């Protein structure tokens, strides 16, 4: 675990075209605390970013043999991150505190995670600790309706920044917030009127920020937003980590592209839980914690899927109960939000 401490945190900033990624980055980079943050952007947009560690990358993807989109390697990122690592290790730049990768509006964040976790060198030096997604309060609802990529970006997010709330109508913004919460109940939501947001809070993994206020009329734990579903599950006891690995690796192989996101804490009968975090096929290296972060010592895991119905997942976990060593129970939304 000592290697975990030395890895440089990476933040992936996604968001639909014109949703305010660059405006947000401009504000963020102006803060004194981000002096040693390197930024990789796809294009120098109209909003001038001025920062000494700014690098432009041309999106070059290499599709691997299996042909799945999320298991592609971004060669451009490998090159750019290696260059930063070399500069850092030769002492030519101060030690990097963080690398921020801005994606193009249409990009799926999964290949970026795959690139970092699959590269034999990068995986030991970088670790993605945060996926930030910007959603524009004015055009966001339209993007979510029309573009599946936009839903994927929200599902992949650890934090969602709702921008342009200053010019959106109050009602529209409220409905949008509730919708974001339904797509991804585990994400923390920030509002950024005029691009103003608390940089320190935003870049702290975990940290403050509120979960999307649910409009509270739907009491059930299964959320449907069109094709996207989310379900939170707990177990009536400790589960067998090996059995969970079998079930989940099998699920990802069969339905990987339909599992947009998984996030949770699992009680595996040890002193602390296992932190599970995955975007499509890409599973962050699971961390076995030494202790529980709070009083609640139950497993809690959330699945965000596309086309896979929550009941199917629950029935499957129920069928696997002998192997898992515990029975799955659906969790209510308000109990499920307390994720790390």
């Amino acid at each position, binding site marked *: 675990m000592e290697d975990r401490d030395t890895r440089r945190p990476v933040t992936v900033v996604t968001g639909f075209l014109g949703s305010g990624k660059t405006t947000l980055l401009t504000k963020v980079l102006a803060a004194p605390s981000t002096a040693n943050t390197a930024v990789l952007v796809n294009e120098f947009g109209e909003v001038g970013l001025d920062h000494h560690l700014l690098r432009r990358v041309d999106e070059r993807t290499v599709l691997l043999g299996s042909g799945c989109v999320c298991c592609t390697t971004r060669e451009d990122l490998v090159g750019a991150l290696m260059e930063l690592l070399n500069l850092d290790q030769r002492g030519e730049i101060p030690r990097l505190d963080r690398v921020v990768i801005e994606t193009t509006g249409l990009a799926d964040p999964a290949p970026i995670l795959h690139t970092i976790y699959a590269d034999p060198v990068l995986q030991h030096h970088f670790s993605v600790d945060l996926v930030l997604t910007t959603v524009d309060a004015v055009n966001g609802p339209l993007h979510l309706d029309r573009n599946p990529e936009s839903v994927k970006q929200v599902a992949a997010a650890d934090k969602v920044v709702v921008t342009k709330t200053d010019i959106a109508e109050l009602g529209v913004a409220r409905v949008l917030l509730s919708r974001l919460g339904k797509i991804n109940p585990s994400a923390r939501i920030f509002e950024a009127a005029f691009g103003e947001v608390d940089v320190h809070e935003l870049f702290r993994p975990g940290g403050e920020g509120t979960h999307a206020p649910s409009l509270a009329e739907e009491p059930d734990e299964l959320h449907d937003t069109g094709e996207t579903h989310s379900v939170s599950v707990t177990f009536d006891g400790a589960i067998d980590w090996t059995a969970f690995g079998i079930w989940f690796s099998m699920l990802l192989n069969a339905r990987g592209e339909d599992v947009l996101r998984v996030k949770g804490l699992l009680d595996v009968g040890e002193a602390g839980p*296992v932190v599970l975090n995955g975007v499509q096929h890409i599973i962050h290296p699971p961390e076995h914690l030494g202790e529980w972060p709070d009083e609640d010592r139950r497993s809690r895991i959330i699945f965000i899927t596309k086309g896979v119905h929550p009941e199917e997942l629950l*029935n499957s976990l*129920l069928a696997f109960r002998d192997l898992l060593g515990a029975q799955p129970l659906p969790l209510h939304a308000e109990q499920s939000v307390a994720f790390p």
Partner: protein
Amino acid sequence: MCVLCGQDFVAQVHWTDRHLENRARASGPGSDPVAFQGDRRRDRAHRVVLTNEVLRHYGLRVEDWGGSKYVLRDRKGRSELVQDLGSLWPAAAKLAGRRPDPLDSALCEALSAAHEG
């Protein structure tokens, strides 16, 4: 692959193996290597038993192969060598002629029947 011992140098540790890998690293130099090997062997044996419960439905069996890989066999004597759970499922799909799916209702019924029986 190392030509002397036949071990692969696996650059990519599958997430299901990460737990043991981390424990091996955390133990550091000077710790008892045999204790870790015991854990690892137990863990692999346990995984083989559980995986076979699922693979039975597809007419397949998996065995530990020298503590470094797994060998997956069907009843016609065909076999595939796999590194971890990440490569096991595609190989199982190839041998079984269909993709093992935990949401498959027939598999769920078979596992539930085993629970009641």
